[in-house]
Protein backbone atom coordinates (compact mmCIF):
# COMPACT_ATOMS: atom_id res chain seq x y z
CA UNK A 1 0.00 0.00 0.00
CA UNK A 2 2.63 2.52 1.01
CA UNK A 3 4.83 1.37 -1.86
CA UNK A 4 2.10 2.12 -4.33
CA UNK A 5 1.46 5.54 -2.88
CA UNK A 6 5.13 6.52 -2.95
CA UNK A 7 5.19 5.63 -6.61
CA UNK A 8 2.05 7.58 -7.45
CA UNK A 9 2.73 10.72 -5.45
CA UNK A 10 5.79 12.12 -7.24
CA UNK A 11 4.23 11.82 -10.68
CA UNK A 12 0.94 13.39 -9.67
CA UNK A 13 2.90 16.10 -7.87
CA UNK A 14 4.92 16.75 -11.02
CA UNK A 15 1.83 16.88 -13.13
CA UNK A 16 0.22 19.30 -10.73
CA UNK A 17 3.28 21.52 -10.95
CA UNK A 18 3.30 21.34 -14.72
CA UNK A 19 -0.39 22.18 -14.73
CA UNK A 20 0.17 25.06 -12.41
CA UNK A 21 2.98 26.45 -14.56
CA UNK A 22 0.89 26.11 -17.66
CA UNK A 23 -1.98 27.70 -15.84
CA UNK A 24 0.24 30.61 -14.78
CA UNK A 25 1.41 31.13 -18.35
CA UNK A 26 -2.14 31.01 -19.64
CA UNK A 27 -3.24 33.42 -16.97
CA UNK A 28 -0.50 35.89 -17.88
CA UNK A 29 -1.44 35.59 -21.53
CA UNK A 30 -5.10 36.14 -20.71
CA UNK A 31 -4.39 39.20 -18.60
CA UNK A 32 -2.20 40.72 -21.31
CA UNK A 33 -4.61 39.93 -24.11
CA UNK A 34 -7.61 41.29 -22.21
CA UNK A 35 -6.19 44.44 -20.66
CA UNK A 36 -3.66 45.62 -23.23
CA UNK A 37 -5.94 46.78 -26.07
CA UNK A 38 -8.30 48.74 -23.83
CA UNK A 39 -5.58 50.26 -21.69
CA UNK A 40 -3.50 51.23 -24.75
CA UNK A 41 -6.43 53.08 -26.30
CA UNK A 42 -7.17 54.70 -22.95
CA UNK A 43 -3.56 55.87 -22.59
CA UNK A 44 -3.33 57.03 -26.21
CA UNK A 45 -6.52 59.09 -26.24
CA UNK A 46 -7.14 60.10 -22.63
CA UNK A 47 -4.04 60.27 -20.43
CA UNK A 48 -1.26 60.97 -22.91
CA UNK A 49 -3.00 63.85 -24.75
CA UNK A 50 -3.64 65.69 -21.47
CA UNK A 51 -0.06 65.27 -20.31
CA UNK A 52 1.20 66.36 -23.70
CA UNK A 53 -0.98 69.45 -23.70
CA UNK A 54 0.47 70.49 -20.35
CA UNK A 55 3.83 70.58 -22.16
CA UNK A 56 2.51 72.36 -25.28
CA UNK A 57 0.84 74.99 -23.12
CA UNK A 58 4.32 76.37 -22.36
CA UNK A 59 4.95 77.27 -26.00
CA UNK A 60 3.77 79.83 -28.47
CA UNK A 61 2.75 77.26 -31.04
CA UNK A 62 0.66 77.51 -34.17
CA UNK A 63 0.55 73.76 -34.58
CA UNK A 64 2.95 73.36 -37.47
CA UNK A 65 6.03 71.29 -36.75
CA UNK A 66 7.29 70.71 -33.23
CA UNK A 67 6.83 73.57 -30.75
CA UNK A 68 10.04 75.61 -30.39
CA UNK A 69 9.01 79.02 -29.10
CA UNK A 70 9.17 78.42 -25.35
CA UNK A 71 7.39 81.13 -23.39
CA UNK A 72 7.07 79.45 -19.97
CA UNK A 73 3.78 80.54 -18.41
CA UNK A 74 3.22 83.27 -21.00
CA UNK A 75 0.06 81.65 -22.33
CA UNK A 76 -1.42 81.46 -18.85
CA UNK A 77 -0.63 85.10 -18.15
CA UNK A 78 -2.24 86.14 -21.42
CA UNK A 79 -5.20 83.95 -20.64
CA UNK A 80 -5.95 85.40 -17.24
CA UNK A 81 -5.55 88.91 -18.63
CA UNK A 82 -8.06 88.29 -21.41
CA UNK A 83 -11.38 89.80 -20.35
CA UNK A 84 -13.34 87.35 -22.54
CA UNK A 85 -11.71 84.45 -20.73
CA UNK A 86 -12.71 85.93 -17.39
CA UNK A 87 -16.25 86.34 -18.72
CA UNK A 88 -16.35 82.71 -19.81
CA UNK A 89 -15.08 81.52 -16.42
CA UNK A 90 -17.76 83.53 -14.66
CA UNK A 91 -20.42 82.36 -17.15
CA UNK A 92 -19.49 78.72 -16.60
CA UNK A 93 -19.67 79.21 -12.84
CA UNK A 94 -23.04 80.99 -13.19
CA UNK A 95 -24.41 78.06 -15.19
CA UNK A 96 -23.06 75.70 -12.54
CA UNK A 97 -24.66 77.62 -9.66
CA UNK A 98 -28.00 77.93 -11.46
CA UNK A 99 -27.92 74.18 -12.16
CA UNK A 100 -27.36 73.40 -8.50
CA UNK A 101 -29.95 75.84 -7.19
CA UNK A 102 -32.71 75.44 -9.80
CA UNK A 103 -32.19 72.41 -11.99
CA UNK A 104 -31.46 69.82 -9.31
CA UNK A 105 -34.32 70.77 -6.96
CA UNK A 106 -36.67 70.80 -9.95
CA UNK A 107 -35.51 67.31 -10.97
CA UNK A 108 -35.89 66.09 -7.41
CA UNK A 109 -39.39 67.55 -7.15
CA UNK A 110 -40.47 65.85 -10.35
CA UNK A 111 -38.92 62.58 -9.26
CA UNK A 112 -40.93 62.79 -6.05
CA UNK A 113 -44.07 63.44 -8.11
CA UNK A 114 -43.57 60.77 -10.75
CA UNK A 115 -41.12 58.39 -9.21
CA UNK A 116 -43.17 56.81 -6.47
CA UNK A 117 -46.64 55.78 -5.60
CA UNK A 118 -49.05 54.34 -8.10
CA UNK A 119 -49.80 57.51 -10.01
CA UNK A 120 -51.57 56.17 -13.12
CA UNK A 121 -49.74 57.09 -16.30
CA UNK A 122 -46.45 57.72 -14.59
CA UNK A 123 -44.63 55.76 -17.30
CA UNK A 124 -45.91 58.21 -19.91
CA UNK A 125 -44.96 61.22 -17.80
CA UNK A 126 -41.54 59.77 -17.20
CA UNK A 127 -40.99 59.17 -20.91
CA UNK A 128 -42.05 62.72 -21.84
CA UNK A 129 -39.89 64.26 -19.14
CA UNK A 130 -36.87 62.17 -20.00
CA UNK A 131 -36.96 62.30 -23.78
CA UNK A 132 -35.13 65.62 -24.28
CA UNK A 133 -32.10 63.92 -22.77
CA UNK A 134 -31.99 61.48 -25.69
CA UNK A 135 -31.99 64.20 -28.37
CA UNK A 136 -28.65 65.33 -29.67
CA UNK A 137 -27.49 68.73 -28.55
CA UNK A 138 -27.50 69.95 -32.14
CA UNK A 139 -31.20 69.17 -32.60
CA UNK A 140 -31.97 70.74 -29.24
CA UNK A 141 -30.12 73.90 -30.19
CA UNK A 142 -31.79 74.17 -33.60
CA UNK A 143 -35.28 73.69 -32.17
CA UNK A 144 -34.69 76.23 -29.42
CA UNK A 145 -33.22 78.81 -31.76
CA UNK A 146 -36.65 79.10 -33.30
CA UNK A 147 -38.41 79.01 -29.94
CA UNK A 148 -36.25 81.84 -28.61
CA UNK A 149 -35.99 83.87 -31.78
CA UNK A 150 -36.67 87.62 -31.35
CA UNK A 151 -39.59 87.65 -33.84
CA UNK A 152 -42.92 88.29 -32.21
CA UNK A 153 -44.14 85.17 -34.04
CA UNK A 154 -41.56 82.92 -32.37
CA UNK A 155 -42.95 80.36 -29.95
CA UNK A 156 -41.87 81.79 -26.60
CA UNK A 157 -42.62 85.39 -27.52
CA UNK A 158 -46.03 84.53 -28.95
CA UNK A 159 -46.97 82.42 -25.93
CA UNK A 160 -45.95 85.22 -23.58
CA UNK A 161 -47.82 87.78 -25.70
CA UNK A 162 -50.95 85.66 -25.34
CA UNK A 163 -50.74 85.34 -21.58
CA UNK A 164 -49.14 88.61 -20.48
CA UNK A 165 -50.96 91.79 -21.48
CA UNK A 166 -48.67 94.49 -22.82
CA UNK A 167 -45.76 92.07 -23.31
CA UNK A 168 -43.02 93.29 -25.63
CA UNK A 169 -41.19 90.56 -27.57
CA UNK A 170 -37.71 89.90 -26.20
CA UNK A 171 -34.65 88.88 -28.20
CA UNK A 172 -33.78 86.08 -25.82
CA UNK A 173 -30.52 85.24 -27.53
CA UNK A 174 -29.66 88.75 -28.68
CA UNK A 175 -29.56 90.59 -25.37
CA UNK A 176 -26.29 90.56 -23.48
CA UNK A 177 -27.97 90.37 -20.08
CA UNK A 178 -30.47 87.68 -20.99
CA UNK A 179 -28.65 85.28 -23.27
CA UNK A 180 -26.96 83.33 -20.49
CA UNK A 181 -30.26 82.72 -18.71
CA UNK A 182 -31.89 81.70 -21.97
CA UNK A 183 -29.06 79.23 -22.42
CA UNK A 184 -29.63 77.96 -18.92
CA UNK A 185 -33.33 77.38 -19.63
CA UNK A 186 -32.42 75.22 -22.62
CA UNK A 187 -29.78 73.33 -20.64
CA UNK A 188 -32.38 72.63 -17.96
CA UNK A 189 -34.90 71.49 -20.57
CA UNK A 190 -32.36 69.05 -21.95
CA UNK A 191 -30.73 67.70 -18.82
CA UNK A 192 -33.18 67.75 -15.91
CA UNK A 193 -34.62 64.39 -17.05
CA UNK A 194 -31.25 62.77 -16.51
CA UNK A 195 -31.07 63.92 -12.90
CA UNK A 196 -34.73 63.01 -12.42
CA UNK A 197 -33.99 59.44 -13.47
CA UNK A 198 -31.13 59.25 -10.97
CA UNK A 199 -33.38 60.52 -8.17
CA UNK A 200 -36.07 58.05 -9.16
CA UNK A 201 -33.56 55.26 -8.88
CA UNK A 202 -32.52 56.53 -5.48
CA UNK A 203 -36.12 56.81 -4.30
CA UNK A 204 -36.80 53.25 -5.35
CA UNK A 205 -34.03 52.12 -3.05
CA UNK A 206 -35.65 53.66 0.04
CA UNK A 207 -37.69 51.14 2.01
CA UNK A 208 -41.31 52.31 2.30
CA UNK A 209 -41.52 51.04 5.89
CA UNK A 210 -39.20 53.76 7.14
CA UNK A 211 -41.37 56.58 5.82
CA UNK A 212 -44.49 54.73 6.94
CA UNK A 213 -43.06 54.38 10.44
CA UNK A 214 -42.37 58.12 10.59
CA UNK A 215 -45.97 58.85 9.53
CA UNK A 216 -47.33 56.49 12.15
CA UNK A 217 -45.26 58.38 14.72
CA UNK A 218 -47.09 61.54 13.68
CA UNK A 219 -44.64 63.16 11.28
CA UNK A 220 -46.12 65.50 8.69
CA UNK A 221 -45.35 64.90 5.00
CA UNK A 222 -42.86 67.77 5.07
CA UNK A 223 -41.12 66.23 8.07
CA UNK A 224 -40.99 62.82 6.42
CA UNK A 225 -39.39 64.40 3.39
CA UNK A 226 -36.94 66.47 5.41
CA UNK A 227 -35.88 63.91 8.00
CA UNK A 228 -36.35 60.54 6.32
CA UNK A 229 -36.49 60.69 2.53
CA UNK A 230 -33.84 63.31 1.77
CA UNK A 231 -31.20 61.93 4.15
CA UNK A 232 -31.70 58.47 2.69
CA UNK A 233 -31.29 59.98 -0.76
CA UNK A 234 -27.96 61.46 0.32
CA UNK A 235 -25.66 59.44 -1.91
CA UNK A 236 -27.80 60.16 -4.99
CA UNK A 237 -27.92 63.87 -4.22
CA UNK A 238 -24.16 63.97 -3.76
CA UNK A 239 -23.74 62.17 -7.07
CA UNK A 240 -26.05 64.49 -9.02
CA UNK A 241 -24.26 67.52 -7.59
CA UNK A 242 -20.98 66.04 -8.79
CA UNK A 243 -22.29 65.26 -12.29
CA UNK A 244 -24.00 68.61 -12.54
CA UNK A 245 -20.85 70.56 -11.70
CA UNK A 246 -18.63 68.57 -14.05
CA UNK A 247 -21.37 68.84 -16.67
CA UNK A 248 -21.48 72.62 -16.40
CA UNK A 249 -17.86 72.88 -17.43
CA UNK A 250 -18.24 70.71 -20.49
CA UNK A 251 -21.07 72.56 -22.22
CA UNK A 252 -20.11 73.28 -25.78
CA UNK A 253 -22.51 72.31 -28.54
CA UNK A 254 -25.67 73.86 -27.10
CA UNK A 255 -23.97 77.13 -26.29
CA UNK A 256 -22.09 77.22 -29.59
CA UNK A 257 -25.04 76.60 -31.89
CA UNK A 258 -27.72 78.35 -29.84
CA UNK A 259 -25.86 81.58 -29.24
CA UNK A 260 -23.99 81.75 -32.53
CA UNK A 261 -20.51 81.08 -31.21
CA UNK A 262 -20.94 82.60 -27.76
CA UNK A 263 -22.58 85.84 -28.84
CA UNK A 264 -23.74 88.52 -28.72
CA UNK A 265 -20.25 89.98 -28.38
CA UNK A 266 -18.96 87.02 -26.33
CA UNK A 267 -21.59 87.62 -23.65
CA UNK A 268 -22.44 83.91 -23.46
CA UNK A 269 -18.95 82.50 -23.94
CA UNK A 270 -18.34 79.41 -21.79
CA UNK A 271 -15.02 77.76 -21.06
CA UNK A 272 -15.31 75.18 -23.83
CA UNK A 273 -16.60 77.64 -26.44
CA UNK A 274 -13.79 80.02 -25.50
CA UNK A 275 -11.31 77.19 -26.03
CA UNK A 276 -12.70 76.55 -29.49
CA UNK A 277 -13.03 80.13 -30.59
CA UNK A 278 -9.73 81.52 -29.31
CA UNK A 279 -7.59 78.40 -29.39
CA UNK A 280 -8.54 75.85 -32.00
CA UNK A 281 -10.18 77.91 -34.72
CA UNK A 282 -7.41 80.52 -34.61
CA UNK A 283 -4.74 77.80 -34.82
CA UNK A 284 -3.24 78.87 -31.51
CA UNK A 285 -2.62 75.41 -30.20
CA UNK A 286 -0.17 76.44 -27.49
CA UNK A 287 -2.62 79.00 -26.14
CA UNK A 288 -5.52 76.56 -26.55
CA UNK A 289 -3.54 73.95 -24.62
CA UNK A 290 -3.25 76.39 -21.74
CA UNK A 291 -7.03 76.85 -21.79
CA UNK A 292 -7.48 73.07 -21.91
CA UNK A 293 -5.17 72.61 -18.93
CA UNK A 294 -7.08 75.23 -16.92
CA UNK A 295 -10.35 73.49 -17.81
CA UNK A 296 -8.86 70.15 -16.88
CA UNK A 297 -7.48 71.51 -13.61
CA UNK A 298 -10.91 72.88 -12.65
CA UNK A 299 -12.75 69.65 -13.47
CA UNK A 300 -10.11 67.33 -12.06
CA UNK A 301 -9.43 69.42 -8.98
CA UNK A 302 -13.10 69.68 -8.18
CA UNK A 303 -13.65 65.95 -8.78
CA UNK A 304 -10.83 64.85 -6.53
CA UNK A 305 -11.65 67.24 -3.69
CA UNK A 306 -15.39 66.63 -3.88
CA UNK A 307 -15.00 62.87 -3.90
CA UNK A 308 -12.54 62.96 -1.02
CA UNK A 309 -14.86 65.11 1.04
CA UNK A 310 -18.33 63.91 0.17
CA UNK A 311 -18.34 60.72 -1.83
CA UNK A 312 -15.79 58.50 -0.14
CA UNK A 313 -18.27 55.75 0.38
CA UNK A 314 -20.39 56.34 -2.68
CA UNK A 315 -18.05 56.34 -5.61
CA UNK A 316 -17.01 53.33 -7.67
CA UNK A 317 -19.84 51.26 -6.33
CA UNK A 318 -22.10 53.63 -8.22
CA UNK A 319 -21.25 53.88 -11.81
CA UNK A 320 -23.61 56.46 -12.98
CA UNK A 321 -22.92 59.03 -15.56
CA UNK A 322 -21.20 56.53 -17.72
CA UNK A 323 -21.53 57.75 -21.27
CA UNK A 324 -23.92 60.39 -20.17
CA UNK A 325 -23.49 64.03 -20.92
CA UNK A 326 -24.84 66.08 -18.11
CA UNK A 327 -25.41 69.69 -17.34
Amino acid at each position, binding site marked *: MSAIRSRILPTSYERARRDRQRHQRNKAALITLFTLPGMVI*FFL*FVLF*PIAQSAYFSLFDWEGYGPPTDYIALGNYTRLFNHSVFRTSVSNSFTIMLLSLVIQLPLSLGLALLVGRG*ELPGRGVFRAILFIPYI*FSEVITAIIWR*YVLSPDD*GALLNSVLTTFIPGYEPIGWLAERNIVLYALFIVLTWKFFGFHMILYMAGLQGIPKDLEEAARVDGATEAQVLRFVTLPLLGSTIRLTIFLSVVGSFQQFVLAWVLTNEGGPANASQLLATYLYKFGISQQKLGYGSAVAIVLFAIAFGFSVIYQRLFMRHDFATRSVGAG*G*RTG
Partner: protein
Amino acid sequence: MFGTRQLPWTILKYALLVLICLVIMGPVLTAVLGSIRTTGEFVSTPFGLPQNGIQWENYLGILENPSFWNSLKNSLIITLGVTILNIMLASMLAFVFSRVSFYGRGLLFNILLIGLLFPLVIAILPIFIQVRQLNLIDSMWGVILPLVAFGLPGSVVILRNFFIAIPSELEDAAYIDGCTPFGFFRYILLPLARPALLAVATLQVIAGWNEYFLPLLILTDPDQWPLPLGIMQFQGQYGTDYARIMAYVTLLIIPAVLFYLVAEKYIVTGLTGGELKG
Protein backbone atom coordinates in the same frame (compact mmCIF):
# COMPACT_ATOMS: atom_id res chain seq x y z
CA MET B 1 -56.62 54.04 -4.32
CA PHE B 2 -57.27 57.69 -3.57
CA GLY B 3 -58.81 58.57 -0.22
CA THR B 4 -61.18 61.55 -0.24
CA ARG B 5 -58.52 63.61 1.49
CA GLN B 6 -56.01 62.78 -1.24
CA LEU B 7 -58.22 63.57 -4.21
CA PRO B 8 -57.52 67.32 -4.48
CA TRP B 9 -53.83 66.65 -4.03
CA THR B 10 -53.91 64.08 -6.85
CA ILE B 11 -55.70 66.49 -9.18
CA LEU B 12 -53.13 69.16 -8.37
CA LYS B 13 -50.35 66.69 -9.07
CA TYR B 14 -51.80 65.85 -12.45
CA ALA B 15 -52.39 69.47 -13.37
CA LEU B 16 -48.80 70.31 -12.51
CA LEU B 17 -47.41 67.33 -14.42
CA VAL B 18 -49.51 68.01 -17.50
CA LEU B 19 -48.41 71.63 -17.47
CA ILE B 20 -44.74 70.69 -17.19
CA CYS B 21 -45.08 68.06 -19.90
CA LEU B 22 -46.65 70.66 -22.19
CA VAL B 23 -43.72 73.00 -21.59
CA ILE B 24 -41.30 70.15 -22.30
CA MET B 25 -43.07 68.93 -25.41
CA GLY B 26 -44.02 72.37 -26.78
CA PRO B 27 -40.78 73.01 -28.65
CA VAL B 28 -40.66 69.44 -29.97
CA LEU B 29 -44.28 69.51 -31.19
CA THR B 30 -43.66 72.88 -32.79
CA ALA B 31 -40.79 71.40 -34.75
CA VAL B 32 -42.74 68.30 -35.78
CA LEU B 33 -45.79 70.32 -36.84
CA GLY B 34 -43.56 72.87 -38.54
CA SER B 35 -42.13 70.08 -40.67
CA ILE B 36 -45.50 69.43 -42.34
CA ARG B 37 -46.49 73.09 -42.76
CA THR B 38 -45.20 75.76 -45.09
CA THR B 39 -42.51 78.13 -43.96
CA GLY B 40 -45.02 80.96 -44.30
CA GLU B 41 -47.42 79.28 -41.87
CA PHE B 42 -44.58 78.61 -39.45
CA VAL B 43 -43.46 82.23 -39.46
CA SER B 44 -46.94 83.70 -38.95
CA THR B 45 -48.02 81.27 -36.21
CA PRO B 46 -45.27 79.00 -34.86
CA PHE B 47 -47.67 76.47 -33.36
CA GLY B 48 -50.58 75.12 -35.33
CA LEU B 49 -51.92 72.53 -37.72
CA PRO B 50 -51.17 72.68 -41.45
CA GLN B 51 -53.73 74.88 -43.19
CA ASN B 52 -52.73 74.17 -46.77
CA GLY B 53 -52.50 70.39 -46.54
CA ILE B 54 -49.59 68.36 -45.30
CA GLN B 55 -46.38 69.52 -46.93
CA TRP B 56 -44.65 66.23 -47.67
CA GLU B 57 -42.28 67.93 -50.07
CA ASN B 58 -40.38 69.29 -47.06
CA TYR B 59 -39.35 65.70 -46.44
CA LEU B 60 -38.95 64.71 -50.07
CA GLY B 61 -36.41 67.48 -50.55
CA ILE B 62 -34.25 65.92 -47.87
CA LEU B 63 -34.83 62.28 -48.68
CA GLU B 64 -33.93 62.87 -52.33
CA ASN B 65 -30.72 64.57 -51.31
CA PRO B 66 -27.83 62.07 -51.42
CA SER B 67 -25.90 63.96 -48.76
CA PHE B 68 -28.60 63.08 -46.19
CA TRP B 69 -28.11 59.36 -46.86
CA ASN B 70 -24.38 59.83 -46.84
CA SER B 71 -24.54 61.51 -43.42
CA LEU B 72 -26.79 58.70 -42.21
CA LYS B 73 -24.23 56.15 -43.38
CA ASN B 74 -21.42 58.03 -41.63
CA SER B 75 -23.45 58.26 -38.43
CA LEU B 76 -24.07 54.51 -38.54
CA ILE B 77 -20.37 53.79 -39.09
CA ILE B 78 -19.38 55.95 -36.12
CA THR B 79 -22.16 54.65 -33.87
CA LEU B 80 -21.56 50.98 -34.64
CA GLY B 81 -17.80 51.35 -34.50
CA VAL B 82 -17.92 53.05 -31.10
CA THR B 83 -20.48 50.65 -29.67
CA ILE B 84 -18.87 47.40 -30.81
CA LEU B 85 -15.32 48.38 -29.88
CA ASN B 86 -16.40 49.79 -26.54
CA ILE B 87 -18.35 46.66 -25.60
CA MET B 88 -15.52 44.34 -26.61
CA LEU B 89 -12.76 46.20 -24.82
CA ALA B 90 -14.84 47.08 -21.77
CA SER B 91 -16.11 43.53 -21.21
CA MET B 92 -12.59 42.12 -21.44
CA LEU B 93 -11.26 44.72 -19.01
CA ALA B 94 -14.20 44.26 -16.65
CA PHE B 95 -13.64 40.49 -16.67
CA VAL B 96 -10.01 40.87 -15.64
CA PHE B 97 -10.81 43.57 -13.07
CA SER B 98 -13.52 41.46 -11.46
CA ARG B 99 -12.42 37.85 -11.86
CA VAL B 100 -8.67 37.53 -12.40
CA SER B 101 -6.44 38.71 -9.59
CA PHE B 102 -2.89 39.83 -10.29
CA TYR B 103 -0.30 42.22 -8.95
CA GLY B 104 -1.08 45.83 -9.90
CA ARG B 105 -4.71 45.20 -10.77
CA GLY B 106 -6.02 47.77 -8.31
CA LEU B 107 -3.62 50.41 -9.63
CA LEU B 108 -4.61 49.74 -13.23
CA PHE B 109 -8.30 49.97 -12.36
CA ASN B 110 -7.79 53.25 -10.52
CA ILE B 111 -5.92 54.70 -13.48
CA LEU B 112 -8.89 53.83 -15.65
CA LEU B 113 -11.24 55.49 -13.15
CA ILE B 114 -9.43 58.82 -13.69
CA GLY B 115 -11.35 58.89 -16.94
CA LEU B 116 -14.60 59.29 -15.01
CA LEU B 117 -13.41 62.56 -13.54
CA PHE B 118 -13.46 64.65 -16.69
CA PRO B 119 -15.50 64.51 -19.87
CA LEU B 120 -14.38 64.42 -23.48
CA VAL B 121 -15.19 68.06 -24.21
CA ILE B 122 -12.63 69.19 -21.65
CA ALA B 123 -9.89 67.23 -23.39
CA ILE B 124 -10.98 68.08 -26.92
CA LEU B 125 -7.90 70.07 -27.89
CA PRO B 126 -5.42 67.55 -26.46
CA ILE B 127 -7.31 64.84 -28.33
CA PHE B 128 -7.24 66.86 -31.53
CA ILE B 129 -3.46 67.30 -31.28
CA GLN B 130 -2.98 63.62 -30.57
CA VAL B 131 -5.24 62.51 -33.42
CA ARG B 132 -3.25 64.73 -35.75
CA GLN B 133 0.02 63.23 -34.56
CA LEU B 134 -1.34 59.77 -35.26
CA ASN B 135 -2.32 60.87 -38.78
CA LEU B 136 -5.97 60.12 -38.15
CA ILE B 137 -7.37 63.48 -39.27
CA ASP B 138 -10.08 62.83 -41.87
CA SER B 139 -10.29 59.22 -40.75
CA MET B 140 -13.33 57.73 -39.03
CA TRP B 141 -10.91 56.11 -36.58
CA GLY B 142 -9.93 59.57 -35.40
CA VAL B 143 -13.52 60.00 -34.22
CA ILE B 144 -14.24 56.44 -33.11
CA LEU B 145 -11.13 55.71 -31.02
CA PRO B 146 -11.30 58.79 -28.73
CA LEU B 147 -15.02 58.16 -28.19
CA VAL B 148 -14.24 54.55 -27.28
CA ALA B 149 -11.46 55.64 -24.94
CA PHE B 150 -13.66 58.14 -23.11
CA GLY B 151 -16.55 55.68 -22.87
CA LEU B 152 -14.39 52.87 -21.50
CA PRO B 153 -14.19 53.80 -17.79
CA GLY B 154 -17.96 54.09 -17.39
CA SER B 155 -18.65 50.88 -19.29
CA VAL B 156 -16.01 48.96 -17.36
CA VAL B 157 -17.49 50.08 -14.03
CA ILE B 158 -21.03 49.03 -15.00
CA LEU B 159 -19.89 45.65 -16.32
CA ARG B 160 -17.51 45.03 -13.44
CA ASN B 161 -20.31 45.61 -10.92
CA PHE B 162 -22.38 43.08 -12.82
CA PHE B 163 -19.59 40.50 -13.14
CA ILE B 164 -18.75 40.72 -9.44
CA ALA B 165 -22.33 39.84 -8.59
CA ILE B 166 -22.15 36.54 -10.46
CA PRO B 167 -21.47 33.82 -7.85
CA SER B 168 -17.98 32.34 -7.82
CA GLU B 169 -19.45 28.83 -7.43
CA LEU B 170 -20.48 29.09 -11.06
CA GLU B 171 -16.91 29.86 -12.04
CA ASP B 172 -15.52 27.00 -9.92
CA ALA B 173 -18.00 24.57 -11.43
CA ALA B 174 -17.05 25.66 -14.94
CA TYR B 175 -13.33 25.21 -14.26
CA ILE B 176 -13.89 21.76 -12.71
CA ASP B 177 -15.73 20.79 -15.88
CA GLY B 178 -12.61 21.70 -17.81
CA CYS B 179 -13.58 25.18 -18.92
CA THR B 180 -10.71 27.61 -19.56
CA PRO B 181 -10.93 31.16 -18.19
CA PHE B 182 -11.56 32.35 -21.71
CA GLY B 183 -14.28 29.75 -22.16
CA PHE B 184 -15.88 30.85 -18.91
CA PHE B 185 -15.80 34.46 -20.09
CA ARG B 186 -17.12 33.73 -23.56
CA TYR B 187 -19.72 31.05 -22.92
CA ILE B 188 -20.94 31.70 -19.38
CA LEU B 189 -20.20 35.25 -18.22
CA LEU B 190 -21.09 37.17 -21.39
CA PRO B 191 -24.45 35.43 -21.98
CA LEU B 192 -25.35 35.99 -18.32
CA ALA B 193 -24.36 39.63 -18.55
CA ARG B 194 -26.63 40.36 -21.52
CA PRO B 195 -28.73 43.00 -19.71
CA ALA B 196 -25.61 44.85 -18.55
CA LEU B 197 -24.05 44.61 -22.02
CA LEU B 198 -27.21 46.03 -23.57
CA ALA B 199 -27.28 48.84 -21.00
CA VAL B 200 -23.69 49.75 -21.89
CA ALA B 201 -24.45 49.43 -25.60
CA THR B 202 -27.45 51.80 -25.49
CA LEU B 203 -25.37 54.50 -23.78
CA GLN B 204 -22.64 54.14 -26.40
CA VAL B 205 -25.17 54.26 -29.23
CA ILE B 206 -26.52 57.55 -27.86
CA ALA B 207 -23.02 58.95 -27.36
CA GLY B 208 -21.82 57.96 -30.84
CA TRP B 209 -25.00 59.00 -32.66
CA ASN B 210 -25.14 62.44 -31.04
CA GLU B 211 -21.46 63.38 -31.12
CA TYR B 212 -20.85 66.71 -32.82
CA PHE B 213 -17.69 68.31 -31.45
CA LEU B 214 -15.20 65.56 -32.27
CA PRO B 215 -16.21 65.03 -35.93
CA LEU B 216 -16.32 68.83 -36.30
CA LEU B 217 -12.60 68.93 -35.50
CA ILE B 218 -11.42 65.66 -37.00
CA LEU B 219 -13.38 65.35 -40.24
CA THR B 220 -12.75 68.17 -42.69
CA ASP B 221 -14.43 66.53 -45.69
CA PRO B 222 -18.25 67.08 -45.73
CA ASP B 223 -18.62 63.65 -47.37
CA GLN B 224 -17.54 62.10 -44.08
CA TRP B 225 -19.81 64.14 -41.83
CA PRO B 226 -22.33 62.39 -39.60
CA LEU B 227 -25.90 63.65 -39.17
CA PRO B 228 -25.28 66.26 -36.42
CA LEU B 229 -22.83 68.00 -38.75
CA GLY B 230 -25.03 67.27 -41.75
CA ILE B 231 -27.99 69.10 -40.24
CA MET B 232 -25.83 72.10 -39.39
CA GLN B 233 -24.60 72.22 -42.97
CA PHE B 234 -28.15 71.86 -44.24
CA GLN B 235 -29.26 74.68 -41.98
CA GLY B 236 -26.49 76.84 -43.35
CA GLN B 237 -27.65 76.12 -46.91
CA TYR B 238 -31.38 76.57 -46.43
CA GLY B 239 -31.19 79.38 -43.88
CA THR B 240 -34.72 80.70 -43.65
CA ASP B 241 -36.52 77.72 -45.20
CA TYR B 242 -37.70 76.79 -41.72
CA ALA B 243 -40.11 74.08 -42.86
CA ARG B 244 -37.34 72.05 -44.45
CA ILE B 245 -35.06 72.47 -41.47
CA MET B 246 -37.86 71.29 -39.19
CA ALA B 247 -38.34 68.29 -41.46
CA TYR B 248 -34.66 67.43 -41.04
CA VAL B 249 -34.99 67.91 -37.27
CA THR B 250 -38.03 65.63 -37.22
CA LEU B 251 -36.20 62.99 -39.23
CA LEU B 252 -33.63 62.92 -36.42
CA ILE B 253 -36.19 63.11 -33.60
CA ILE B 254 -38.13 60.05 -34.80
CA PRO B 255 -35.30 57.51 -34.52
CA ALA B 256 -34.32 58.98 -31.14
CA VAL B 257 -37.85 58.53 -29.78
CA LEU B 258 -38.18 55.04 -31.26
CA PHE B 259 -34.83 54.09 -29.80
CA TYR B 260 -35.96 55.37 -26.42
CA LEU B 261 -39.19 53.38 -26.56
CA VAL B 262 -37.38 50.18 -27.53
CA ALA B 263 -34.40 50.54 -25.22
CA GLU B 264 -35.87 52.51 -22.32
CA LYS B 265 -35.22 49.75 -19.83
CA TYR B 266 -31.56 49.47 -20.80
CA ILE B 267 -30.95 53.21 -21.02
CA VAL B 268 -32.36 53.70 -17.55
CA THR B 269 -30.46 50.72 -16.17
CA GLY B 270 -27.25 51.98 -17.71
CA LEU B 271 -27.58 55.54 -16.44
CA THR B 272 -28.43 54.46 -12.94
CA GLY B 273 -25.86 51.69 -12.72
CA GLY B 274 -28.58 49.07 -12.66
CA GLU B 275 -30.61 50.51 -9.81
CA LEU B 276 -33.82 51.57 -11.50
CA LYS B 277 -35.58 48.74 -13.25
CA GLY B 278 -37.71 49.50 -16.27
